């Protein structure tokens, strides 16, 4: 039995936590037969608990504790020793100078186990348990909740308050206590074996001291509980348990666990969700839809990749074609109605999900958008739908009354198109360059042709022609991209073929900015093309990430600032920067490891290996420099972005104050939430810069509205 139930990393209880009570019953029955087995098993679990806590595996640790609690129900562990463990956990709230998220976790572990074991513990040790709950109550009252606004999906309190997770759980436990710990939802197989189990000898848990806080501990972030349905939403059939009922907590916990276990296999996941035990007593479809959207909209990030949720919902619709699509449509309409108070990051995800979903269902659900349409959102959805299909398709499916919302035809705008433009400066050179490219002229030949382009920035007698010449860039790039406009592949080939020329033309910051402006000018109707071209320009090092950030924040792009694709590009740019740094860091680590291994192997040094060592050391030094340079570039990128945000927001706030106008416009909401989004989506990297951010940018002099965003972010890890 040790091989199956032993402390391996593939312990069944850790893999299917929703089936926890099945395993504990089994352990209980084995313990009744063999006392020593029970003892060894408990010892092994305690060892594993210690290890998972040391390794920052808090989700694992949570379920280990819950497993131990249920072992109390199975007469394997004596209740008083469990209470003692809980007392040690709660005493963490008395520690000083520790992050709030640390004591939060220990409180969460205790509270979230009570639906399973509250009754048993209260029966045996009610005085101690009351004292425990009082301590928790005191802690919850004094803890800070600065982080909450940053994590809420909707800012409005109605119709469903978005509660902080510990507050919600506390309310649920209070109610459970009032109901005298009667909990009817959890399946408890051990009840059927009570006659056998109650004969068993119990073990005492050894005293368990929570490991001390270390600087590199990374506790789970706080959460806000996502609610979109209540008992009024499921019109027929079983009633939805209230938001403060413990049933709600257990159902959601189990559904989250099923997704966690099976997310890689969407058909299995859908089947498992729909065969939830006890499904006849609850409006299961509503719970499933709520849990799925709760994960999709979770801030800072969903637990799993976004596209998984889209395909999971489609599989669920296939398995329950008579009921689930209706619940999903109801949910979609509801979210659409409440867009005004939805967090911008969540709107992004809703947009992505809905457009992909529509496409999967051949646009049969499109009508939802046109019932009290929200123009901005509809336009963005239609644009995304167009990317997955084509322009004419969108024209065909949009009702004529709403034709103004159809996205622009993604055509190329060529400045030097026809002879009507012959008066434009550079026109003649554009024609010559075009012909040269078509005739496969060499780079040198083309550069020679381009020498004839006058520089509007230069003095007439300065004939070096080496400085930044915006017209030269314009003439060449417009013509090149025009010739390559047929497809992404054509454009990528063009950029690759003329990489040398582009590098020469954009040797300075102004050049890089201008190339991006030209790309926008020609492809302004085709945001997807702009996106992929910017991606290629970064990857081929024609422009750098900071240039892209500066371009997106420039006055030229102000009118596009609230467009979805702008933020797609910015976040993609940041991600590329982050991946680049990680890649070089990895190369450095690998080189260092290689050197270490090489040095260990040396037995009686030979000059050859000294040479090898020298080469490797040189390589390590080079990589070290590369890493430092990349990290510096990365930090600079974030500083540029934050600076730009602060400038824009401050300007707006000052202007509104002087004009005595309400600052809280839709533009402001979008802008401040986009700033939040930067923090949330890249929180891991930004953590490194807290000192600089606090000293340089987010100082006390800043308008408190802007500073609040920074403070909320800090509260996520304190």
């Amino acid at each position, binding site marked *: 039995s040790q091989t199956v139930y032993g402390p391996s990393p*593939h312990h*069944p209880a850790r*893999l*299917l936590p929703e*089936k926890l009570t*099945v395993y504990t019953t089994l352990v209980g029955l084995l313990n009744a037969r063999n006392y020593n087995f029970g003892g060894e098993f408990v010892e092994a679990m305690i060892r594993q608990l210690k290890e998972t806590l040391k390794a920052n595996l808090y989700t694992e640790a949570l379920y280990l504790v819950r497993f131990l609690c249920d072992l109390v129900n199975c007469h394997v562990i004596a209740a008083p020793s469990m209470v003692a463990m809980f007392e040690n956990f709660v005493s963490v709230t008395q520690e000083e100078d520790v992050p709030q998220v640390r004591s939060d976790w220990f409180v969460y572990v205790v509270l979230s186990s009570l639906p399973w074991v509250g009754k048993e513990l209260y029966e045996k040790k009610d005085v101690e348990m009351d004292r425990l709950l009082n301590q928790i109550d005191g802690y919850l009252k004094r803890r800070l909740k600065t982080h909450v606004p940053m994590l809420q999906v909707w800012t409005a309190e109605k119709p469903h308050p978005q509660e902080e997770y510990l507050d919600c759980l506390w309310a649920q436990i209070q109610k459970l206590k009032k109901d005298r710990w009667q909990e009817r939802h959890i399946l408890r197989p051990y009840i059927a074996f009570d006659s056998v189990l109650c004969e068993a000898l119990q073990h005492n848990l050894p005293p368990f001291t929570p490991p001390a806080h270390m600087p590199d501990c990374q506790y789970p972030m706080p959460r806000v509980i996502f609610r979109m349905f209540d008992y009024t939403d499921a019109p027929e059939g079983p009633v939805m348990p209230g938001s403060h009922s413990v049933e709600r907590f257990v159902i959601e916990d189990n559904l989250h666990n099923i997704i966690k*276990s099976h997310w*890689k*296999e*969407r058909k*299995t996941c859908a089947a498992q969700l729909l065969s939830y035990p006890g499904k006849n007593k609850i409006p299961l479809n509503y719970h499933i839809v709520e849990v799925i959207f709760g994960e999709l909209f979770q801030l800072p990030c969903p637990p799993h*990749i*976004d*596209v*998984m949720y*889209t*395909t999971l919902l*489609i599989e669920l619709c296939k398995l329950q074609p008579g009921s689930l699509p209706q619940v999903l449509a109801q949910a979609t309409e509801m979210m659409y109605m409440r867009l005004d108070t939805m967090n911008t990051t969540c709107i992004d995800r809703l947009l*992505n999900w809905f457009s*992909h979903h529509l*496409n*999967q269902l*051949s646009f049969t659900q499109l009508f939802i958008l046109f019932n009290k349409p929200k123009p901005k959102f509809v336009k963005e959805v239609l644009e995304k739908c167009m*990317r*997955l*299909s*084509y322009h004419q398709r969108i024209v065909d499916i949009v009702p004529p009354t709403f034709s103004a919302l159809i996205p622009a035809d993604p055509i190329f705008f060529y400045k030097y198109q026809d002879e009507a433009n012959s008066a434009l400066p550079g026109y003649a050179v554009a024609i010559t360059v075009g012909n040269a490219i078509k005739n496969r002229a060499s780079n040198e030949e083309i550069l020679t042709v381009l020498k004839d382009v006058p520089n509007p920035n230069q003095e007439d007698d300065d004939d070096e022609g080496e400085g930044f010449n915006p017209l030269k860039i314009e003439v060449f790039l417009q013509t090149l991209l025009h010739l390559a406009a047929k*497809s*992404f*592949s054509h454009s*990528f080939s063009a950029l690759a073929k003329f990489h040398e020329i582009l590098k020469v033309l954009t040797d300075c910051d102004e050049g890089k900015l201008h190339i991006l402006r030209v790309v926008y000018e020609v492809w302004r109707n085709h945001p*997807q*093309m702009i996106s*992929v071209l910017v*991606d290629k320009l970064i990857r081929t090092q024609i422009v750098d990430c900071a240039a892209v950030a500066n371009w997106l924040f420039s006055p030229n792009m102000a009118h596009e600032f609230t467009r979805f694709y702008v933020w797609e590009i910015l976040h*993609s740019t940041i991600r*590329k920067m982050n991946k680049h740094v990680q890649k070089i860091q990895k190369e450095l680590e690998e080189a260092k490891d290689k050197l270490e291994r090489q040095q260990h192997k040396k037995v009686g040094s030979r000059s050859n290996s000294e040479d090898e060592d020298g080469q490797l050391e040189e390589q390590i030094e080079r990589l070290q420099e590369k890493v430092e340079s990349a990290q510096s570039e990365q930090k600079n990128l974030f500083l540029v972005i934050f600076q730009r945000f602060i400038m824009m927001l401050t300007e707006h706030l000052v202007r509104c104050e002087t004009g005595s106008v309400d600052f809280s416009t839709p533009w402001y909401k979008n802008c401040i939430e986009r700033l939040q989004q930067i923090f949330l989506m890249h929180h891991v990297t930004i953590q490194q810069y807290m000192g600089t951010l606090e000293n340089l940018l987010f100082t006390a002099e800043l308008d408190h509205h802007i500073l609040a965003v920074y403070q909320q972010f800090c509260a996520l890890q304190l």
Partner: protein
Amino acid sequence: MSIKLNALFSDSYVDVSQYRDQHFKGNRYEQEKLLKQANTLYVGNLSFYTTEEQVYELFSKSGDVKRIIIGLDKVKKTACGFCFVEYYTRTDAENAMRFVNGTRLDDRIIRTDWDAGFKEGRQYGRGKSGGQVRDEYRQDYDPARGGYGKDSIGWQVIGIVAFKGNF
């Protein structure tokens, strides 16, 4: 209470299929090894009219796409209903196998499979008429894939002769 411990680690959408490229230069073992490390996917059952842009948009949902190579009719040099999608990382390709494979593009269920890596020449259909083999003898009418199969009329005639022959 069936606890299938093997099933707990199941990630079947990512498994290598039975298909092996007959033109692969190397033995079965080498091909399989490449398939298990691949970042490239073969994508089949596309409409002839599906563009590179559409493929980019869909497959970008599982990660950054490195490049797309649209499959071409060897004779006509037009799209003939398949393509290759190459990712920068294996993880992104795996997520495509889990969440893009078997979903719709241009109203058609598309199919993805691991590919040992694009080589020049593999972008062409291998059917006699220039398109994909599957379109040579296809019996059904598929307007998004050139209508009837190339040689389906031939097979239909043979079928009628065989039928008549029975009398």
